[in-house]
């Protein structure tokens, strides 16, 4: 018997949509939430989860997405504040065991970790990657 996980994803942009497809096709139970009903067009035909239209700053909307049942909460809207607040509400109010927030502004990264959130910062991650390649290139060239 496969261990099916319940995953709530906030923000159905390119990243959110891709994650939703990935987990759904893998066989997990997925709810994806977005304020724009048109956003769900990015989902593939194989996506078999649920979609909820609404803003993640409203507790009622998070309830509707069954956040209280989630094993994992992933906030990847284009709004840092919304990602941070909804992930924190998922942890504290809905007792979700793990919450991940995407943060565009690197200056919020450390603070989010202090709040107990797992943070993904595309800017820091990309910078580190480029730096790694650059150092490899420079030192390799010597």
């Amino acid at each position, binding site marked *: 018997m496969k261990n099916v996980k319940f995953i709530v994803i906030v923000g159905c942009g390119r990243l959110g949509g891709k994650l939703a497809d990935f987990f759904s096709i893998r066989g997990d139970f997925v709810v994806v939430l977005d304020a724009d009903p048109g956003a769900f067009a990015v989902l593939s035909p194989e996506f078999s989860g649920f979609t909820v239209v609404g803003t*993640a*700053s*409203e*507790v*009622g909307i998070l309830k509707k997405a069954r956040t209280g049942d989630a094993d994992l909460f992933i906030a990847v809207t284009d*709004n*840092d*504040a*919304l990602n*941070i*607040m*909804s992930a*924190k*509400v998922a942890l*504290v*109010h809905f007792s979700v065991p793990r919450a991940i927030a995407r943060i565009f*502004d690197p*200056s*919020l990264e450390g*603070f989010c970790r*202090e*709040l107990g959130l797992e943070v993904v910062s595309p800017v820091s991650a990309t910078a580190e990657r480029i730096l790694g390649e650059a150092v490899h290139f420079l030192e390799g060239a010597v």
Partner: protein
Amino acid sequence: MGSVLIVGDGVYLKFVCRGLVSRGHEVTLVVKDEDESLRLAEELRVVVVHGNGTLPDTLKEAGILNAHRVFALTSHDEDNYLVCALARHRFGIGSTFALVHDPENEAVFRELGIVGTFSVTAAVSSLIDQRSASESIRNLQPLADGRFGLTEAELGPDSPATGKELRELALPEGALLVTIVRGQDAIVPRGNTRLELGDRVGFIYLAAEYARTLSAIVGKD
């Protein structure tokens, strides 16, 4: 009085600032929209910083380290949460206050450690309730972040409390009748004080007990 740092936007902001300045507070404003920040800088005699107040650097630039209080009055709950969370956890400001729009967020913000909140929606709906309930009811005042309410009402001929002693009233557990104004007299009632027609009575109650308290004292319209 101390200095207040406000991150905000929208129609109330100007009036809140003016009110605080007139009470002697030193106010610094952080406003995201450039046009709005220029307009406010012209209209108000306060320092206005144009920038994103949900970022630590902007808050530092606006002098958060010298602020005694931080108010988050933007039109987005998530921004208000982040401003207060940064102020408390990153900058050690003990006194923070957030405007909330989704009434359910009042309780959630408390759970997240944001102590002072004010729900615009709840305040407006309670004012509407109050107006539509009765002309004889007034001074609805939220206390302790809206967990208690304070209301004053006039006893009419059909009010259940009229002619009764205070101890005979069937008040809910979470309610107390605390003041009586009778003509020129202000009375602090005891158990054996008899309530009379035309008395203006003040009572406090747990927010959830408002309707039951009102009907036990004033009755239904």
